[in-house]
């Protein structure tokens, strides 16, 4: 078997292990799947009617979908932290396997949580009467964009999870770093509602950029080439920064004395 083949086979074996964990300890999966439902219903039925935003449902659902994959992507840090704490990560690091397999095993299994989150977000939308206006091509492009964004989030979470001093820090940091991005963004509210000094931050925030591209893809008129390009720049940028860093951190090993 070639080196690449061995790396991919190892990744698949470890992704399956991590999916088993997600399935047998389903708390995280339920959280990933339940969270977008709660957010969509709360904003749609409690906050939405108070807002003077026309077509709020079409504004909200792409935003909820974006934050759903961001939230689910952050969950990758929880499994990673558990592996750090129990010494499982050291066991894997002492095996004659590629370190990429360890990383792809975690990020690959995390795709399951992202799909679950996205599915419930969309299902909640559909049940409450939301529909994608665009044709199937643009609809699918939207889902691809979301999953690509989820991958970028997951890799950043892996970096934070490996860089944190303790396993518990890894869990917290990897999970919550997305919250400020989601809150100071146009995921739920138009940035016009924000104080002036926050507006530029909110507009350039990757969550906003992705949500905007998604809204234009699903509900807009002309093909949103500019918005999409901007979103891709963010996604590729995050991946280029995070993926090699994650590898380096795993090779060096989590900080000493932080095993317990």
């Amino acid at each position, binding site marked *: *078997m070639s080196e690449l083949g*061995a790396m991919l*086979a*190892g990744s698949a*074996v*470890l992704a399956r*292990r991590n999916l*088993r*964990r997600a399935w*047998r*300890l389903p708390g995280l999966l339920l959280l990933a799947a339940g969270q977008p439902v709660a957010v969509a219903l709360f904003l749609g039925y409690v906050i939405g009617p108070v807002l003077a935003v026309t077509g709020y449902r079409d504004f909200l659902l792409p935003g909820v979908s974006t934050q759903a994959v961001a939230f689910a992507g952050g969950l990758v840090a929880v499994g990673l932290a558990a592996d750090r704490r*129990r*010494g*499982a990560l*050291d*066991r*894997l*690091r*002492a*095996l*004659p*396997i590629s370190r990429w*397999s360890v990383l792809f095993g975690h990020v690959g299994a995390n795709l399951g949580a992202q799909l679950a989150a996205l599915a419930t977000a969309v299902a909640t939308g559909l049940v409450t009467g939301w529909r994608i206006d665009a044709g199937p091509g643009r609809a699918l492009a939207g889902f691809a964009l979301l999953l690509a964004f989820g991958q970028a989030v997951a890799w950043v979470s892996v970096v934070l999870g490996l860089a944190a001093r303790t396993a518990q820090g890894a869990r917290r940091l990897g999970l919550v770093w997305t919250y400020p991005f989601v809150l100071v963004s146009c995921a739920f509210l138009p940035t016009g509602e924000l104080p002036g000094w926050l507006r530029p931050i909110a507009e350039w925030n990757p969550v906003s950029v992705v949500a905007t591209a998604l809204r234009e893809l699903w509900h807009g008129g002309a093909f949103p080439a500019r918005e999409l390009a901007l979103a891709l720049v963010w996604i590729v940028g995050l991946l280029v920064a995070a993926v090699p860093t994650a590898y380096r951190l795993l090779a*060096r*090993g989590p900080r*000493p*004395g932080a*095993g*317990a």
Partner: protein
Amino acid sequence: MADAIVAEGLAKRYGQVQALAGLSLSVPQGTVLGVLGPTGAGKTTTVRILATLLRPDRGRGFVNGIDVVAEPEHARRQLGVSAQQTAVDGFLTGFEQLELLGRLHRLGRRRARSRAEELLERLHLAEAGSRAVRTYPLAMRRRLDLAAALVAAPPVLLLDEPTRGLDPRGRLGMWDVLTERVRAGCTLLLCTAQLDEADQLADEIVVIDRGRVIAGGTPEELKRRIGGERIQVVLGNRAETQVVEDILNRVCGGQAAVLPDQHLVQAPVTGGAQALVELVRRLDAAGIEPVDIGIHRASLDDMFLKLTGQAATPTVAEEEART
């Protein structure tokens, strides 16, 4: 005989703490080296460096001649590692855990499964193989952790306190398995904080303290150096002290000492069990009924006191200085 494990002048510092300060050791192929030392002496750091999990600041390490710093990927093929924590996945069954590792070692599905069955059988886990690991008691987890290290049948095993926290029965079970591995030709680096464990399993022992080796030799040599075993007799009647001292001197070849406050007479001894039988016979003949009688074995604490002039257990202040 070639050395299967070699460490040369390993040094590692964590912030203020010098975990290793030029530690060297070597383990001939097919033998067991006991690395004996208190918590914080550098045992775990040594294992982590040899297991390619940690880079040393200075020094070199080899397993079967392969440099663990320069060629970690190759070194890992020689190694089975079982660390202090039991690194097994609670959400998997014992069988799934071993099968997973077999697959990662690229044994193929069929081979990975039969290997998992075989190891469960050998480590007396066959009945628990289909249960989730989180239901296992500690002794079973430790055995599974060892099985996990054995999946690829590595020629070199690095074990960091494999019996820590086990009850006497669990400890004996683990010792049996390790002895069997050595008979099968494995080379073992066994870190332990228990003198009797090193005594039982190791061909040679190195004693480490503060990141360096402070003594080494066969278990017999070390025990001789620290005084080994003593026979102690506790008496109910202080008037009998003199008689017992005489008897002990005869049985043990002199050196009997009396600690009157504790009603205790003791003497150093070699071949303790036989001397004990002889002593009991003579005490009986003399009509003396001791309150207690027994062999007192030198502990790790005794050894440290003797070797370093201080207790093995670090004081609170030292412990704080280390963290």
